[in-house]
């Protein structure tokens, strides 16, 4: 029979080749869209209210200490010649500032997200690989913060490290005119992955971290080399200094805040009681040249993180719009349906 030859030519009868694959064919019908909008709208309003109310419960104490205004306490520190300047910012809390309280410093008009700035580091070096202390990979990324004028390699190299925020703060509660220092906890303020994986100190040479940095020089702006960043805690030095890690995690936007300390210990574990406080600022970090601002922020957090009115409001607005849309669509649908019936 010829059938064999014929059937060889004949296309296979499968659902795939005949485009008859079983399929779900959803349609944006009124029965789905209108209730869908309504449900999403209501859910969003719910979330929005939740977010907004939560956000309202979060306490925030924010203080700009840049010292632009003449009457501000830090004005005198803005004069460049005034080195090691200290100023004092006072504030008072009328109610208990519920703990744990987080202490942030904030910068604005500061472009940590500038591309050139961002690439100016050497990840190999920061993993503690001493091969990259003397050389760089890629070579040009860190420049011009790669070598000092004597052509000594800078470690850690690059603009980010060089520009580390170096104002320091001490917080005092003023009780009956006496200052009681509030203990600030600087442990664990960086990401766990940064501290444990991404950044590594070079292996100490003869038990000394400093020796591992032999042959390198500190970044130009730094007062002390990397291995002496924290003189109080020998474990908080080198690339694993918490403040360094926080700084190295570049902010996405030109206005940002970074965690400085936690207030979790001692008398202040439950929060900052109502009263007067004084913040001593060791003013080192110049920002006025580029119209920057510096501030400190005290805040507590909720399940949703810090205070964030935007998100709550956005949810409320979007939820309301969805509900409105569902009504509009219902009206349109009803009208269309009637007119359609007329046709029929």
């Amino acid at each position, binding site marked *: 029979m010829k059938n064999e030859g014929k059937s060889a030519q004949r296309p296979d009868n499968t659902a795939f080749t005949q485009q008859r694959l079983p399929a779900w064919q959803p349609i944006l019908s009124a029965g789905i869209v209108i209730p869908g909008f309504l449900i999403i709208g209501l859910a969003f309003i719910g*979330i929005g209210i939740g977010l907004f109310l939560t956000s309202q419960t979060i306490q925030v104490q924010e203080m700009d200490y840049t010292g632009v205004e003449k009457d501000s306490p830090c004005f005198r520190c803005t004069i460049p010649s005034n080195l090691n300047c200290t100023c004092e910012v006072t504030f008072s809390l009328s109610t208990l500032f519920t703990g744990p309280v987080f202490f942030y410093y904030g910068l604005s008009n500061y472009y940590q997200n*500038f591309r050139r700035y961002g690439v100016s580091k050497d990840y190999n070096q920061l993993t503690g690989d001493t091969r990259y202390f003397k050389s760089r990979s890629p070579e040009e990324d860190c420049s011009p913060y790669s070598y000092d004028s004597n052509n000594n390699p800078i470690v850690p190299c690059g603009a980010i490290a060089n520009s580390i925020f170096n104002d320091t703060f001490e917080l005092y509660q003023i009780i009956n005119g006496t200052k009681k220092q509030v203990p600030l906890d600087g442990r664990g303020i960086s990401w766990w992955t940064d501290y444990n994986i991404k950044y590594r100190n070079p292996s100490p040479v003869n038990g000394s971290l400093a020796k591992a940095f032999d042959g390198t020089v500190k970044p130009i702006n730094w007062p002390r080399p990397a291995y002496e960043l924290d003189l109080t805690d020998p474990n908080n030095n080198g690339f694993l200094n918490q403040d360094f890690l926080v700084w190295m995690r570049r902010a996405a936007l030109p206005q940002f805040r970074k*965690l400085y300390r936690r207030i979790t210990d001692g008398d202040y574990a439950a929060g900052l009681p109502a009263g007067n406080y004084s913040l001593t600022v060791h003013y080192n970090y110049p920002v006025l040249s580029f119209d920057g601002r510096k501030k400190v922020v005290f805040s507590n957090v909720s399940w949703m993180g810090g205070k964030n009115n935007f998100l709550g409001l956005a949810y409320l607005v979007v939820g309301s719009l969805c509900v409105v849309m569902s009504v509009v669509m219902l009206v349109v649908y009803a009208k269309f349906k009637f007119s359609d019936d007329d046709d029929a």
Partner: protein
Amino acid sequence: TKLNFSSALEEERHVRANDRDYNERFSYADNRIKTAKYNVFTFLPINLFEQFQRFANAYFLVLLILQLIPEISSLSWFTTIVPLVLVLAITAVKDATDDYFRHKSDQQVNTRQSQVLIKGKLQNEKWMNVRVGDIIKLENNQFVAADLLLLSSSEPYGLCYIETAELDGETNLKVRQALTVTSDLGDDVAKLADFSGEVICEPPNNKLDKFTGTLCWKDNKYSLDNEKMLLRGCVLRNTEWCFGLVIFAGLQTKLMQNCGRTKFKRTSIDKLMNTLVLWIFGFLICMGIILAIGNTIWEQKVGSDFWEYLQWKELTINAVFSGFLTFWSYIIILNTVVPISLYVSVEVLRLGHSYFINWDRRMYYSRKATPAEARTTTLNEELGQVEFIFSDKTGTLTQNIMVFNKCSINGKTYGDVYDEFGHKVDITEKTPCVDFSFNPLMDRKFRFHDSSLVEAIKLEEPLVQEFFRLLALCHTIMPEERNEGELVYQAQSPDEGALVTAARNFGFVFRSRTPETITLYEMGQAVTYQLLAILDFNNVRKRMSVIVRNPKGQLKLYSKGADTILFDRLDPSNEELMFTTSEHLNEFAGEGLRTLALAYKDLDEDVFDEWMKKLLFASTALDNREEKLGALYEEIEQGMLLLGATAIEDKLQEGVPETIACLTLANIKIWVLTGDKLETAMNIGYSCNMLRDDMNTVFIISGHTMLEVQQELSKDKFSSGLDMEKTELYSSDSVFEETIIAEYALIINGHSLAHALEADLEQILVDVACLCKTVICCRVTPLQKALVVELIKRHKRAVTLAIGDGANDVSMIKTAHIGVGISGQEGMQAVLASDYSFAQFRYLQRLLLVHGRWSYHRMCNFLCYFFYKNFAFTLVHFWYGFLCGFSAQTVYDQWFITLFNIVYTSLPVLAMGLFDQDVNEQYSLRFPNLYRPGQLNQLFNKRKFFTCTLQGVCTSFILFFIPYGAFMTAVRDDGAHISDQQTFAVTIATSLVIVVSVQIGLDTNYWTAVNHFFIWGSLAVYFAILFAMHSDGIFTIFPNQFPFIGTARNSLNQKIVWLVILLTTVVCIMPMVAVRFIKADLYPTQTDKVRLLQQATRKQGPQEQNLRRVRRTSSRRSAYAFAHQQGYGELITSGKNMKVPTSSTSTYPLYSPTRGLTGTSSASICKCFRHQKH
């Protein structure tokens, strides 16, 4: 000088037989053909070179180079090279596969065997080793290996028969004849080896029907023409062997010269896509400039003050230079707005759609085992936009099978079947056929349903017998009897074949002929008639006659021809019969049958002798021979007696009227372009339901001069009020276009068309033709077919489709946007030139309404989504530019940029583009007006492009600014900061992937398992890759490449991040859903309605659908049908094509049985004929 000659353009070809040394001096091409483009070594460089000629690829190469410049490199090199290499690799693999198959087919052709005469011996050689100047031997049914000069053949007079189907698609045999001097060489190998003639001829060219040259041999010159050439691609038929001298070989053969690069067809979407890519490119440059200006300003106002922390060498130069560098940096990071994978994805889609066409069982014709084939994979979506179909008639609409359907003999019709109540019964497949088993020589394929005719034959009614005797005698068919009783008729026109076959089945079997005799088997008895004269057919006479002497010695003239012609030449006594027959003819014609009238006449011996003498005299006349012969024919064809009439059905292909009706409902205009005559064409028009009696007017334009044609056209235009309707049509809403206005049809003749196609008239022609429901052009040449297509292409900007089966359709198939060939026929030319091929006209409906519509729909949705996706993805960088000092900082991780287009989002949209069905096939066919959006180009145009890019821009805006707002002050729930660059990147990237996945979900109408797999899979793969790339392990290996370590963990465990993602997704998607819903509610398209209906019926369960029935009612007067050419008469009577040699060589057995024939009795007449022919 010889060397110079060979290197210069060849002006003249010198070929010396059996002299390879001589011929090699000219370095002619050898017989190896090479259609493949590459070999193993050249593949990479050539293919890469070709690929980089494409704009998109070149663009990305330039980008890659830019990225290597450190000053402006804002992205790592791998973000571009990975997609680029992938795209290049996919294309290269495709090219390599194509080329591999070309290599294989080349190899197969090159290694075919042929017998070559080398050193006095016939040797088997591969085709590729055949050289110009070789003498090769061909045997029956072999392909001709190269362009040969025929030297000698097994047949007398050096004749040989070839079939040229592969060359020109014509399936009838053609005769070639060798020069007498060379045919005397016979098959004597020694003589042939000594043959040393030199041929001087034209250089290689592509003219299939022309050849000029001279053969110089033994100091004589013989002129050569095309009649002596066997061209490569032909097949030797009915000829045992022949010898030929190779003149052109390999790539220089006429066949290969004709396979010139076909013009690359591109779809309108292709062109639009190129424009859009250029626009996008312009847009990209604009964005670059805006950001560069921004950078300059920023550097001046802000950046220079930021000096404290950002000390850059460039900055010290000036801000403008920094802006310049920023421009290039932004060109690099915004490059993804030009979709790199667009072209390759589009090709993959088209390939997929082509496979679906190839796989479609409903376009598979089981009787000929021919599946549909998409021969071009670049035109699929245009199938969904066709507005004009230009169809050939013969072999496309009709089967080119003529069936003897009815007849009228002596005033009585036969052929209809009546039931017991005397009602006419429709003839179907099941109607019982007449049993012809009494006749051992019958043709089994013949069907006839009316048994009364057989009864009449069996009753030996003399007029019925005479009727079939006439049919068996009066024709120019050559019989071939391979085995006893296995008769095959070689007919010049299928009509004749049908008539003689009918006679054969009714017991008057035409069995053999010699130049002087015709042998019939009349009811089993061999009867030999002496053939005295053939009064051949031509277009003026529209009839043919034979004069025979029957065994009883009576002289008879049998004539068949157009009724109008024949009725004028009847004996007056026949008048009554003439009227009856005329009525029958009307009846037949009304059914769309082709009719012929038959008449005979008894001749007086004296009168005939007298006439014969005059004929001999006239046939030797030097001037006006044709006219003199015509007058003589006229003289004797008078006073004939009417026998009856035949009705032949020009069988339509299956389902043609239904298909045409359906395509018409889809608002596709169908024009029939045929080489047939006006009457035949109109006949088919009626039987296809393209012409109907209820049409207001059928305009027939057949003017012979420009002026006449112009008058006819304008008359039609104005007097019929077409003009008025035209304005109405323009003013009326498109909604009302569907309402049927007055229907007109236009039929235009070839010679009128020639005038109408001239520049002055073509506009009128287009206007008039487009207002007519039906346009039929008849008697058009292949070139005119192409011109008509070209005309519409030029004036209407509509997508045209040409469908045909023969070589004469090739030009129109190549000209139209889409060419469709009917395959399964013997000729391959049309199929080879076509873009799509299938076996039956009716599959066109499926190709357009199902495959075309789907392809168009899928491609448009695909493109919309693709542009949307890339804009949404890329423009985030633009917004970020305003917040990062225009520093060309990317928002995303570099790996995300690398993988977004090729991994995270490519497969779902491909699955949508391959499988999506807005409406299933049944509904696509049931509602042909669903085809309308494609014709109006509604699903993807510049407006759509703007909408979807605008949607992309909005999405990118939302994608950026919602996280921006949320992250301004955000911290984690453990108090640590979160608004760092990496978390921001991950949040936006995740939102983006989710948003575009939801969007593709919305765009997908048909969720197959594959769609589910790809969409969910893409999301899963995104998260898998995200976590893998942010994992500890990969960082410890490549710390510099994967700086995002831990970001995924640290950000995606935050509720706030998910709340941002959720908000972003909803804000991006909901407006789109609302707009779609309201749009579908307020202004539902046909598609929306059908989809609702489809869903409703699906819920109710399947229902039986009534098939549309097309009823055909017509009362048209039909006419005569015959071949357009002069008949074979001369060849028959000269005996040239007979295998019965008159002379000595008795080695060949007498071809036809000569029982009942006394060889001597015909001698005198034979002589007469000889004289006559000389």
